[in-house]
């Protein structure tokens, strides 16, 4: 099976079936599809309105309320379903933005080389040294606690890995014989880089992004847990767990949203791993380094 995207040419899958051969990858895809389904059809699937406080507080998991109710009498299962509408899209968005930001920066660095490269690389090193969580917390706090700002904050700290990857790929490509050959044949360096490189970059960046979606979800829900992300009454998984932390004797309040995060991240990681294993060794190596 070729990955049917416009990256088909650039992601060389080692052998046509290997992704589907991995049972874990299938589990991952099924799980994410399930969450997507729940997210899209939430109003139809959720038994209760996520914000309605009609039931009693703190009902244990039962037939009527599969995951019990929280401190305001809201059905947790319904809120968990609606939570997928926040966590999943925002994580993907996050990865999308940081990938683009990082790729552009890395691209500039690798393409121009010389002092530009050195300066940008030093800045990237500093970002790596920076405790990302501290910066993310500060930015999120400064902008005002809101899920949108949490996304911005994490984007600011997450771009360096993409920059490093893209820069590495460009530097490698510059040394490639086909670039030398094309230059000898008269094509300007700039043209070869644009024509030959772009298809080759999209693939690895895509796979790295896939590997990072899980992390993005963890960071996002982590910030929300600390109160710096989604705000009540939004049904976001991380903030639901923080309510569970306050009422830890009511074990169901924190357990189920956390399980939701766990299953989603696990599924993303299954898929990411399988994708990486199925790549040709060269790109896999570039991703690992």
């Amino acid at each position, binding site marked *: 099976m070729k990955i049917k995207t416009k990256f088909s040419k650039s992601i060389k899958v080692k052998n046509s079936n290997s992704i589907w051969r991995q049972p874990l990858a299938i589990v991952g895809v099924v799980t994410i599809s399930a969450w997507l389904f729940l997210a899209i059809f939430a109003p139809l699937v959720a038994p209760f309105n996520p914000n309605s406080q009609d039931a009693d507080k703190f009902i244990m998991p039962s037939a009527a309320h599969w995951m019990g109710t929280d401190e305001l009498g809201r059905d947790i299962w319904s809120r968990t379903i609606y939570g997928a509408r926040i966590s999943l899209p925002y994580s993907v968005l996050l990865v999308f933005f940081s990938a683009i930001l990082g790729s552009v920066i890395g691209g500039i660095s690798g393409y121009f080389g010389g002092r530009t490269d050195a300066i940008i690389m030093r800045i990237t090193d500093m970002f790596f040294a920076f405790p990302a*969580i501290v910066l993310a917390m500060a930015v999120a706090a400064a902008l005002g606690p809101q899920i949108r700002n949490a996304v911005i904050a994490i984007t600011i700290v997450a771009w360096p890995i993409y920059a490093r990857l893209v820069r590495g790929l460009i530097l490698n490509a510059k040394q490639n014989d086909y670039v030398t050959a094309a230059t000898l044949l008269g094509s300007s360096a700039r043209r070869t880089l644009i024509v030959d490189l772009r298809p080759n970059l999209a693939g690895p960046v895509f796979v790295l992004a896939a590997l990072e979606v899980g992390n993005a979800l963890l960071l996002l829900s982590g910030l929300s847990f600390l109160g710096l992300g989604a705000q009540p009454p939004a049904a976001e998984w991380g903030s639901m767990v923080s309510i569970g932390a306050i009422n830890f004797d009511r074990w169901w309040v924190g357990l189920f949203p956390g399980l939701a995060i766990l299953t989603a991240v696990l599924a993303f990681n299954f898929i990411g791993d399988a994708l990486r294993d199925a790549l040709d060794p060269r790109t896999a190596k570039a991703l690992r380094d």
Partner: protein
Amino acid sequence: MKLKHRERFSVLKIFTGGGFIPFILRRILTSIVLIFGMTFISFSITQLVPGDPVAANLGQSAYSDPEIVAAFEKEFGLDQPVPIQYLRYIQKLSKGDLGISLSSKRPVLTDLKEYFPATMEIALVAVFLSLIFGLLFGIISAVTRDRLPDQLIRVFSLTGVSMPTFWTALTAFYIFFFVLGWAPGTGRLDPGAEPPKKQTGLFTIDALIEADFSTFRQAFSYLLLPAIVLAIYAVGIITRFTRASVLEILGNDYVRSARAKGLPEYIVIKRHVLRPALLSIITVAGVSFASLMAGSVLVENVFSWPGLGQYAYRAAVGLDLPGIMGVSMVVATVYITMNLIVDVLYRVIDPQLRKSN
């Protein structure tokens, strides 16, 4: 003291010459530059981002009183233009003064000295656990490739890196404290208990120094659960990476040669595989320690552990710039030190690098 032309160049040689010591000196120099760069970055970002530290740290009524606001601003130098603020910060930094925390009103250095040891305590235990288990599981996984131990370890390590730390902390706390009663509650000691005399700030070590074994046991029992939760993510990462690294090396020609000589498998692993594997593993280990910082913010929050993570949280929420910078410096310094250690270890392990230097 005026150096003659030739002598001046030979002093430079301390940095530019080949060999081990010049290498270390060069690295320390770049590290210092790096830390300065970081202060600049953190300063710029927190300035560029909209947000009013004054509003964040004064109550509502105080904020509406212009006099109090002015006094606050004056006290913390917030009324100065931005570049001046930065310069003054750097100036004080070179004297070892990290400024005054906007939220705690104490010198940042004092705050750091108080909160840092607590985090060190759980971090050290977490590092120890994650290295031991990470390496062990990774090697077992690689050696029993695709058989049951490998499958189990792979699932566990993948789960380990997929768990939201705050939730793991919460669940562990619920099960081991609330349900089973095996773990003590939150905090570092029993409520009302006296901490041992402060030597290092690590209660366990300090208790041992005083030969106070009951306090030692108490402090240790409190730190065990948070440390284990903190270690889970790092164990996952190190296991996965060790497995990949060892598998790759097992495919190398020189491993085949070693087997072709009839050496028993454990010697092949110990002498021929581990050394090259360690190179890439220590890199990952170094990086995974950075994840401990992020983890500690969450773990300390759940366990009410008075460490750097809690301090960082409060500083961030309070837009306490000196506090944020202070925490960043500490963590960055640890990170850079780790990198330095990793680089040195590289040269110790790989004789080729040593000779070519």
